[in-house]
């Protein structure tokens, strides 16, 4: 016992798999600061970590690799991640909506501007409110109208959380260069942990929206996000038998393959979605593009 006590407790680091969340305030019994450039926070094993943006408490969890779904308002009621809790949904929508990208591939960076705006409205923000009340509260609306940001949807936020929980990071609309100086667009799903992984790739006409189709505008994205969320909640029986089994038509499902250490790439061919060019499935052009996207993915 004496020997144990004489050791200095080692610091552990944690992060948010749905982030990185950079510049997030954190505090434990022994540590405090802001999450660093990689979104890391530090704690001693077993400590509860409480997070904040300026004057707004974001929630607490036992230190570790987290997602926003692990946080709770009350440090005495910590529990397992639960994507259906209003608290989880409100918190994820709020924090994700501070991100710049739609993906949001680079997570969230909290700067003084964000901190100030959030602090001014902090008193009116309660993550434990009902989802409807939360999204309509003047404080929440105030934050995002002052920031000029879109307040993200319930399903969209939950889908992002769910992917992170499964260890999946997605990069949407990645430009894939082709030999004729044009490009295709791909969604790239990869493990949250950096590394080199084999790629399961499909190129074609089924689009990158969930199930099938393409996303031209916010409404299309909402439809796609709603499909994804309800599919993962098990609502599949009424789907066409060719759509019931997979996340995207004729493609490997990211939720199946990424946890096994693969990358999934869904690429749109020419003339599909927002890819310029002549729509021409099974053509020589498509074959060349297939070659190019395979070469690109291998690098």
């Amino acid at each position, binding site marked *: 016992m004496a020997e144990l006590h004489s050791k200095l407790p080692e610091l552990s680091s944690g992060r948010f798999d749905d982030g990185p969340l950079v510049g997030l305030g954190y505090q434990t019994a022994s540590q405090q600061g802001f999450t660093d450039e990689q979104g890391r926070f530090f704690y001693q094993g077993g400590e509860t970590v409480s997070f904040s943006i300026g004057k707004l408490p974001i929630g607490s969890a036992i230190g570790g690799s987290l997602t926003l779904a692990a946080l709770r308002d009350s440090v005495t009621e910590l529990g397992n991640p639960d994507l259906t809790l209003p608290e989880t949904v409100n918190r994820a929508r709020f924090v994700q909506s501070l991100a710049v990208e739609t993906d949001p591939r680079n997570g969230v960076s909290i700067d003084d501007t964000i901190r100030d705006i959030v602090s001014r409205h902090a008193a009116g923000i309660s993550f434990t409110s009902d989802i409807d009340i939360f999204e309509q509260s003047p404080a929440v609306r105030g934050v995002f109208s002052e920031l000029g940001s879109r307040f993200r949807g319930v399903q969209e936020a939950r889908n992002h959380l769910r992917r992170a929980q499964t260890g999946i990071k997605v990069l949407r609309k990645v430009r894939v260069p082709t030999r004729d100086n044009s490009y295709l667009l791909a969604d790239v799903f990869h493990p949250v942990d950096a590394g080199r992984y084999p790629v399961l790739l499909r190129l074609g*006409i089924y689009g990158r929206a969930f199930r099938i189709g*393409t996303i031209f505008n916010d409404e299309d994205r909402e439809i796609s996000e709603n499909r994804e969320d309800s599919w993962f909640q098990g609502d599949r029986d009424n789907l066409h038998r*060719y759509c019931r*089994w997979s996340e995207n038509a004729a493609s490997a499902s990211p939720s199946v393959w990424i946890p096994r250490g*693969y990358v999934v790439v869904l690429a749109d061919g020419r*003339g599909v979605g927002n890819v310029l060019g*002549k*729509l021409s499935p*099974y053509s020589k052009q498509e074959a060349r593009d297939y070659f190019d996207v395979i070469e690109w993915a291998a690098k």
Partner: protein
Amino acid sequence: MAPISADGDIRDLAYPGGIFLEGYCRWWWNELVLPVKLPNTEVDDYVSGLRSHPWDDEYYYGNGTLSTDFPSIDMPVLTAVSMTNTIHPRSGFEAFSSLSSRVKRLMIMDAVYSGNMYKDFQPDLEAFFDQYLKGEKLVEEPPTVRMVLRTGGGGWQWRTASTWPVPSTEYRELFLDATNAGVGHTSTRAPSREGVAEYSADVEDGNKAMPMVVFESAPLEEDIGLVGHFRATLWVSSTTSDTDVFVALLVMDGEREVPYRTYETGSAAPLTWGCLKVSRRATDPERSTTERPWHTHRREDAQPLVPGEVVKIDVEIMPATGRVLKGHRLRVEISPVEDPGCPPGWEREYDASYHAGATNRILTGASFPSSITIPVVPHEDLYMITACE
């Protein structure tokens, strides 16, 4: 590479048996492709392109819908086919036979295949990619061929085989025997008497039952396993210059058809089927095998019918698996269009110019030994993994 429910050339998706699969192609293009298209972008008209290229010509090897050159592929391949489906029922078998790959695997799925594709054959895909993309050594080498062996009435079993076609396959020829009284018979020996079965090729009148001729076997004396390629050799004539011949093989339990789908109920397909536009009957002897004829589908090989003249045709029937029980009977239906099994909206082209008012004949007997050939595989030659009935 893992092409699942894929197509290789004109025989697979555009013109199976030489008959334009117009309904499916149009549905796919209009319902799945056009909605995702970038507005105002240029479009290759897929359906018109196929319609204007009914022959296996340069369109399928150059600037049109490309064919696959299987022998030029030498990387590891796992492919899967949806047996007897309207779409993707055959190319995987062709691929397995002609790929140069040292490692190739064949998964045989039910007709309505998505559940098989994403759930049941997931372990095969995982093993395949783990081996050849991650370089993992597996404790046990996965099966080269794994199949859904349909057992009728919704049942099936998982079976494996060392290769395809299954090495011990016995091709059993069942000769058709037309009678004057409706349903004809099948028997293992060519009937000595001559017979003719006649049916209308005209199905424009939707109120009438499907015109067809039917041949049934005696009740089976023992269970048989049918695993592999089927074919029909028919002696036919017509009152006009061409005709489409659909052959369906069904299993009957008394008067009731035994359904051979498994857990997806969306298919009404028979045990298996095949079709041929008779003017496309020319085969390539080099590429034809015991198990399946290879029709050239070249314009220069076209052989229109002379009204009343009898010709011999080989109809490629989709490879399938099925266990048929003792006491059940095999039933062969020959009709001028597909029936049943075609999902509504996926119908094949109906060319009224040679259907309207026409009459077809199937000849049987010593001079015209029409038959259907079935692949019989001894029960013990397939390895059972798990029973799923």
